[in-house]
């Protein structure tokens, strides 16, 4: 696998691990990663176990499924129960518990819920089955949002009247700012998400070192990539010179993907958005722009849901802020397990609770 295997090569990895372990810190250092694929990769390769003493890896709000509030899922479930509706979704959302049900359970009860690889696949289904109403669950950060925007644009071009989205996309820089501004949160360095950065560009994060003095490294997802990111952050901390360094050279440019950003800007407008466990963050969500509003399913049908409920005792919120590690939650591994998840951090395979449970 070109661009994959070489970044998993054991000689390269050994050299980087050695370099990483040469750092030493007398006081605790917290490095936060804000991408579910980073979470999975770090646990799958056990990279959190090679960090030098006093350096801790914490997973922030980087899994879009985990930060999606119950209310969103409750709405998706309500839509799934409507006559003639087809819900199309990424596989990640299937087992996420809403307040009272999940898409998987609705599917078992006869709802038409289809897992797709791409929003374009959902669009094609809508084109082929004009007698049914298709709703695509639009979740994800800037990596995913441009593709959804392009799909909505295509739906408009085709004049499709049976394709809608349930807007739920979120944007990362605003969330990082809110997180840093939270006085409880103490982060000494950010491992920035390689594919979000591929779209938005590494320049987008310059406020983090410039306004807050926190070192950042943009990193890819293979073990060597992540190790290079860790090294960059620790070196910056040692030198006391915070900046945004890019270790994902093959994919990330300072300006990002200009075409993708333009499509996103054309189709979406920023809105306040609720992040599970964190609360509402101003301008951190994406709603459809006036020209594309007709594709918002919430404007087509009235979606009635009961008051959303959260499980008492679930510490997902604190986990997402990096305040506690998953095993510190009283529900972890007891009431809350991957087969019977309570909080969303357990259900998504990218969730930090799930990664801790599965990989240790």
């Amino acid at each position, binding site marked *: *696998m070109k661009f*994959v295997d070489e970044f*998993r090569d*054991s000689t390269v*990895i*050994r050299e980087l*691990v050695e370099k990483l372990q040469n750092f030493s810190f007398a006081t605790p250092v917290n490095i936060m990663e804000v991408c*579910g694929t980073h979470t999975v990769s770090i*646990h*799958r*390769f*056990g*990279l959190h*176990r*090679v960090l030098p003493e006093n350096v801790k890896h914490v997973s922030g709000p980087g*899994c*879009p*499924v985990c930060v999606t509030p119950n209310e969103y899922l409750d709405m998706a479930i309500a839509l799934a129960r409507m006559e003639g509706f087809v819900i199309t979704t*990424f*596989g*990640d959302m*299937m*087992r996420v518990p809403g307040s009272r049900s999940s898409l*998987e*359970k609705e*599917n*078992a*009860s006869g709802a038409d819920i289809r*897992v*797709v*690889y*791409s929003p374009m*696949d959902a669009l094609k289904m809508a084109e082929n089955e004009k007698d049914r109403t298709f709703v695509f669950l639009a*979740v*994800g950060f800037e990596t*995913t949002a441009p593709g959804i925007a392009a799909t909505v644009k295509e739906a408009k071009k085709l004049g499709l009247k049976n394709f809608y989205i349930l807007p739920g996309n979120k944007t990362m820089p605003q969330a990082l700012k809110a997180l840093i501004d939270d006085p409880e949160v103490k982060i000494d360095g950010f491992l920035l998400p390689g594919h979000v950065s591929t779209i938005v560009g590494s320049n987008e994060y310059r406020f983090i070192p410039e306004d807050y003095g926190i070192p950042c490294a943009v990193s890819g997802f293979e*073990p060597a990539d992540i190790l290079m990111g860790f090294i960059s952050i620790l070196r910056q901390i040692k030198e006391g010179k915070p900046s945004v360094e890019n270790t994902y050279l093959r994919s990330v440019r300072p300006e990002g993907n200009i075409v993708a950003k333009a499509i996103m800007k054309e189709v979406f407008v920023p809105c306040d958005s609720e992040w599970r466990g964190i609360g509402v963050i101003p301008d951190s969500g994406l709603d459809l722009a006036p020209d594309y509003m007709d594709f918002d399913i919430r404007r087509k049908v009235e979606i009635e849901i009961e008051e959303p409920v959260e499980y008492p005792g679930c510490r997902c919120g604190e986990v997402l802020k990096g305040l506690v590690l998953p095993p510190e939650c009283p529900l972890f591994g007891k009431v809350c397990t*991957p*087969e019977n998840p309570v909080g969303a951090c357990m259900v*998504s*395979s*990218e969730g930090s609770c799930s990664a801790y*449970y*599965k*990989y*240790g």
Partner: protein
Amino acid sequence: MDKILLSHGGGGKKTQALLKEVFLQSFGAGELSKLDDGAIFDSYVISTDSYVVNPLFFPGGDIGKLAASGSINDVVSMGAEPLYMSAGFIIEEGFPVSDLKRIVKSLADTIKSIGVELITGDTKVVEKGKCDGVYINTTGIGRIVKELSVERIRPGNLVVINGNIAEHGLSILLARNEYGISSGIKSDCMELWTLIRPALELDIRFMRDATRGGLAAVLNEVVSSDWGIELYQDKIPISEEVKGMCEMLGLDPLTVANEGKMVIFVSEDDVEKLIEILRKHPGGKDAEVIGRVVDDVKGRVVEKTVVGTRRIVDMPVGEGLPRIC
């Protein structure tokens, strides 16, 4: 558990919960409670399985070959020589006879090739829409050649697999064309008797065929409270095609189904001979030692990563769903 979900059939934790909450509640202790792939009576083994694969024809096989080899392999995994089989067919009204002929011939060819005889059977036809083409149940009966048991596994024993993993599960995904991906991956569906027979002279402790839920499910089912298993991430045989498709869909190949893979626990003394024997057979040319029974982790499967660290390999939860995010 109030309703049966598809993930209850995935072979992972939810399947275990279903068996315990519903079946063992009614049947209680006894041979069934071992939840083995088959049962032993006198010096014989009996094993039954139902096949509901969709689509019925897939790259590398079809439901007939699958129904034959699946029950044969369950018998073989108990250390027995497969001798007889029964088959029950549930057929949907309107199903083409030509397809049925192909399926039956494929089942027949597979069992005849190793001298197994079909000694009884049944057919039922159900109304259109009540089943998906054809469902088959087969029961295999075999005579015990070598007594194997999970109790005979000891720390220091090695874990061997006869070849590339995760091919069957992906071939089914490809045949369903759900995610628009095309690839040359073929199901590994095959009978394992001819492969395993010559190896039964060796000091084999235990065997299991790694079907639904993949390697991760099988290994998690066997670990005991006294020992665990350490896998070597870089030794597990996986084809480049399978690796690639798993990366694309975010699937863990350890949790994807096989239909022609035996996981064999063998003593260290005999491991080289075992690998040599397996590699002589086309179904074992990629055989590898993939791990070791250890006592510094108990009741757990861990994997030694390329980084040199250990990660936990957990029992998969349900059906593998592609991860995009």
